[in-house]
């Protein structure tokens, strides 16, 4: 290093020393000399931060009608910690009672009838809520704000605040799909805020007492629906007077995004109504007379629960999804009581919150035969040689079904020897019978589907299991391809997986629950039962519908879509959801043709009992007071199912799609399931027939939201109308058609119970539609 460099380095050193000295000098100056003056500013300084919650996004139906909205309510709650502090323990029981009595009096006086016992019950049930804060009344008069605010000492722990809550204008319609909200739990709060980035102004923050989506769309789209809370930061002096707003620290709240669903509320309501009526019919139909007086009584058809699903098979869009029994999500608003929550989850009352369309697992019964038929006809690496040496052609040759299937002696011997080693002779039977030993003649695979012969499919399954020259789990592999045994990919919370039983599965299931499954080895009967949708074969209604959608659209497995779009509060589209392909099944025309024919015949093949399509009666029931469905206009392919459940009445199924036309893709695929009801063709198929008939050939009536109902009522009650003109005069028109002829009473229709008879002629009243750009809605007759 030469001298010049050394000199330069020294120069740099001097600069550094002087800079650092300057820092220390300035520090000294600030902290000792200027200390007194500036420190006094610091003393008075205080910031007050007020967080303003953002409004949650709306949930809209496919036409843009709001299905879930918000309103601000005044909520009264009791802070238990504060109450315990002021009136601790049991010795102040009487003072507490006195306080609660006064509270109940005030609440009742303001218009919300409240009993002391209600308040005590709410406090006792506080186990579910966090922070020891119990909501005792929602939506009380805002005047109470001032009242309680001024009397903090008289009402220890009583808090009153303004809060935004959900409103469900259509009540229980689509409740399962929409889902409900509840108070955020500590672990949810933690995980939701864990990847919160302070520097990102759009980051969504959750607060301690936020509500959060717990099920359905509310849960699935939580990230979109939740808004970004705003904050107002004020500088206040010692006496809490606001000096100025700190704009640079403040932020306006940003409303959450809206979610537009694929369902239409009118269609959804129609489906729910028909499902409920179908169950009612099943309940009210007397049981079949016993063939033999000594037979045991058949299980009672309770028909207390069911599900119906309607999809677009080409896009996977869910057009309607119903589960029965249902509940009113308004019950969850402002916190639900423990007793009520338990009742909604209680199995004895049918667990109304359970969304049976995705959470119910049922034996599919004969509806599964489509899968078995697909497996049998699809050429595999090791072909199925039994029925014919000509491959697929073998299934097109007619043969007779004597009412049972007997495994040939040579194969049966193998079976008997193998199972004998394990147990006695319980599973050594080589004979599988049809229900009631029903016989069928001249069955090819097509007709076997149409008349739903069990023996035909027993034979296929038994041979798969016993013959060494092909894969024994061919049917199960086909089921997996159709989407059974795993999530459909709808994204809805709590979707059940169903079960595609295999040997491996049985071993694992036995290890987990030996008493339920009884044995850990596979027998031919397992394959045989599985092939006709019995045994351990379990599906969800959505899975089954989606499997038929795959067959209907030519082999594309689509994940069902619940949402069309995500929009901002100003209706700018953020995201659009299209068809999501998650798999495919090879369905060649040679296979599709006969199977489709079989499904069409199940609906339209007439003939004597036993040779008639199993759903024929449901679509040709005008003689019995039902409908004759215009099948030539809208051909429907479908399959009934009657699944046996140990000790209960059968589950009734009907699955299908339409129209089946060469020039037009199918528009609807649907499934109907009625628990503990009876024959699928008799109880489930009519539900589908009625829904489709109304959907296609009649006008599905508009459902009125709570607001619209209120408007209609106000129109009918001019006294109330004139009392408060400002509230309604802008939004409601009174169309004064004098004595319009009544347009109802078109068809004397069905045997359905509770047909709404409406013929009361009067002035027609209309109210605005729920969504803009839609025609006004006519008020229903009173």
């Amino acid at each position, binding site marked *: 290093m030469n001298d010049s460099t050394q000199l330069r380095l020294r120069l740099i050193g001097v600069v550094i020393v002087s800079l650092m000295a300057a820092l220390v000098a300035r520090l*000294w100056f600030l902290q*000792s000399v200027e200390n007194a003056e*500036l420190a006094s500013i610091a003393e008075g300084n205080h910031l007050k931060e007020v967080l303003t919650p953002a409004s949650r996004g709306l949930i809209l139906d496919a036409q843009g009608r709001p299905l879930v909205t918000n309103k601000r309510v005044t909520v009264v709650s009791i802070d238990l910690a504060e109450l315990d502090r002021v009136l601790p323990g049991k010795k102040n029981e009487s003072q507490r009672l006195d306080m609660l009595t006064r509270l109940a009096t005030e609440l009742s006086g303001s218009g919300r009838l409240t009993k002391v016992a209600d308040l005590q019950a709410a406090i006792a049930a506080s186990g579910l809520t966090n922070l020891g804060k119990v909501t005792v009344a929602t939506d009380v008069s805002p005047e109470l704000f001032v009242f309680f605010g001024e009397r903090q000492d008289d009402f220890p722990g009583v808090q009153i605040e303004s809060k935004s809550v959900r409103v469900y204008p259509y009540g229980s319609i689509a409740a399962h799909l929409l889902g409900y909200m509840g108070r955020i739990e500590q672990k949810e709060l933690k995980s939701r805020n864990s990847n919160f980035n302070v520097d990102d102004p759009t980051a969504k923050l959750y607060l301690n007492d936020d509500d959060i989506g717990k099920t359905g769309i509310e849960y699935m789209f939580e990230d979109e629906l939740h808004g970004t809370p705003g904050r107002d930061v004020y500088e206040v002096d010692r006496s809490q007077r606001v000096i100025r707003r700190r704009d640079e620290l403040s932020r306006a709240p940003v409303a959450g995004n809206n979610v537009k669903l694929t369902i239409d509320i009118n269609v959804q309501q129609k489906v729910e109504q028909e499902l409920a009526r179908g169950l009612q019919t099943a309940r009210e139909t007397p049981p079949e007379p016993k063939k033999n007086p000594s037979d045991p009584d058949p299980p009672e058809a309770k028909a207390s629960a069911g599900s119906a699903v309607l999809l677009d098979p080409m896009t996977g869009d869910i057009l309607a999804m119903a589960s029965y029994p249902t509940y009113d999500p308004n019950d969850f608003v402002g916190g639900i009581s423990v007793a009520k929550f338990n009742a909604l989850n209680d199995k004895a009352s049918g667990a109304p919150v359970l969304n049976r369309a995705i959470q119910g697992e049922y034996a599919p019964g004969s509806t599964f035969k489509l899968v078995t038929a697909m497996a049998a006809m699809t050429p595999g690496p090791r072909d199925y040689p039994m029925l014919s040496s000509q491959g697929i052609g073998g299934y097109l040759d007619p043969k007779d079904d004597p009412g049972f299937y007997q495994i040939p002696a040579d194969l049966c011997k193998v079976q008997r020897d193998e199972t004998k080693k394990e147990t006695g002779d319980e599973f050594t039977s080589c004979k599988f019978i049809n229900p009631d030993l029903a016989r069928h003649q001249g069955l090819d695979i097509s007709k076997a589907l149409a008349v739903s012969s069990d023996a035909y499919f027993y034979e296929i399954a038994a041979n798969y299991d016993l013959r060494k020259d092909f894969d024994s789990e061919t049917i199960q592999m086909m089921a997996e391809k159709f989407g059974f045994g795993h999530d459909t990919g709808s994204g809805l919370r709590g979707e059940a997986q169903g079960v595609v039983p295999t040997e491996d599965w049985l071993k694992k299931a036995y290890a987990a629950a030996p008493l339920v499954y009884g044995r850990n080895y596979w027998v031919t009967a397992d394959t045989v039962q599985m092939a006709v949708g019995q045994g351990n074969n379990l599906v969800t209604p959505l899975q089954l519908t989606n499997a038929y959608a795959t067959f209907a659209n030519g082999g594309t497995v689509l994940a069902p879509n619940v949402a069309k779009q995500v929009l901002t509060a100003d209706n700018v589209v953020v995201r659009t959801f299209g068809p999501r392909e998650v798999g495919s099944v090879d369905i060649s025309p040679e296979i599709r043709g006969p199977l489709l024919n079989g499904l069409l015949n199940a609906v339209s093949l007439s003939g004597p009992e036993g040779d008639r399509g199993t759903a024929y009666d449901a679509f040709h029931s005008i003689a019995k007071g039902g409908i004759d469905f215009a099948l030539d206009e809208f051909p429907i392919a479908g399959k009934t199912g009657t699944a046996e459940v140990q000790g209960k009445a059968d589950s009734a199924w009907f699955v299908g799609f339409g129209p089946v036309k060469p020039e037009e893709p199918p528009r609807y695929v649907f499934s109907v399931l009625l628990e503990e009801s009876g024959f699928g063709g008799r109880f489930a198929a009519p539900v589908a027939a009625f829904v489709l008939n109304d959907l296609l050939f009649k006008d599905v009536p508009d459902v009125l939201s709570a607001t619209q109902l209120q408007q209609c009522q106000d129109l009918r009650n001019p006294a109330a109308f004139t009392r408060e003109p400002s509230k309604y005069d802008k939004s409601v028109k009174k169309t004064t058609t004098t004595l319009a002829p009544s347009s109802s009473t078109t068809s004397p229709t069905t045997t359905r119970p509770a047909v709404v008879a409406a013929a009361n002629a009067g002035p027609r009243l209309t109210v605005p539609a729920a969504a803009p750009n839609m025609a006004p809605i006519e008020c229903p007759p009173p």
Partner: protein
Amino acid sequence: MTASVLSRVPRLRGQDGLWRYIDPSLIIASGAITALGTLMIFSATRNSPVLSPTYFVERQGAAIAIGIVVMGVVAAFDYRKLRELVPLAYFGLLGLLAGVLVFGQKVNDARAWFQFGSIQLQPAELAKPIMIVVLAAFFTGDRATEGHPPTVRRLLVALLLVGLPVGLIMRQPDLGTALVFGVISTAVVIMAGARPRHLLALALMLTFATTAVLTSNTLDAYQKDRLTVFINPDKASERVSYNLEQAQVAISNGGIAGQGLFRGSQTRGRFVPEQQTDFIFSVVGEELGFVGGALLIGLFCLLFLRMWRIAAVARDPFGAQIVVGVLAMLVFQVFQSIGMTMGIMPITGIPLPFVSYGGSSIITTYASIGLVLSVHMRRFS
């Protein structure tokens, strides 16, 4: 026998023996400042109404761990071999800086960060050590000119080399980091032996450029306000003078002994914006007082003294210029960041090395220390 064979393995004598020449005081001083800094971040952020009290400290801790590993790796790498990597590093850097303008995350009106999940990367920080090595390599590459003052042409090329990345950084806009490059370049040019009249010309150009930037429309009004508020506090908008006023109030509030750890009323009330990043010294000043503040500055001085010494004993001009570049960078950042909170420097976002919250800054600072260690360890070889 086996042992003696092993001991003759060249790698053992050559590479690993170098660690004997490492400078522990450099590491100890860095570590002490880092520890103090982390404590200050905790104090500044622990009562966030929203995030967990340890949110910032955990993330900073992770960055420190990565930084220390990076420092070790850089120190182990022979700095003379860095010369070969210079073109690659330079163009890669330009790519990153251009990329962040397009794909970067916009935060506080500046597009300076790449966002990977919850991790943010600030390429302008990365640019600092890279440009130090690039400049040092540029001035020392040629045997023929070694020992002679650089020509005008050479200086102009160097200006262009620095100008490109600085231009990109100004586009973000990140004025503070751009200023750091001015200081780094000046220091390296001085060490490269530039003639005094050339240095004077460069100084004039820098002054002119700064004036041009301040008077033209390149900057938003608020940026100008921030830069000039320390000259004319009454004229500046309330919003800008607020930052400065609150920071000074905080420091004054500390007095000689400080309010005590976690007891600063300004800190707890979070009156100083960005108090965990650029304004972190206000927390030190308020809670630890003059004693703590002077201690921190003293620790920095110890660090600078050691680095100055290392520059003096470096075995070649390349090494010496690297060390001086790092030294200039750190000195300027310390002076600017601390000076800003006390109102003797303009308000512009520059992190206080080892102390401010920010992963990119921590990691590049440790990498720079790694460079200095590498030069120091190889002073005899």
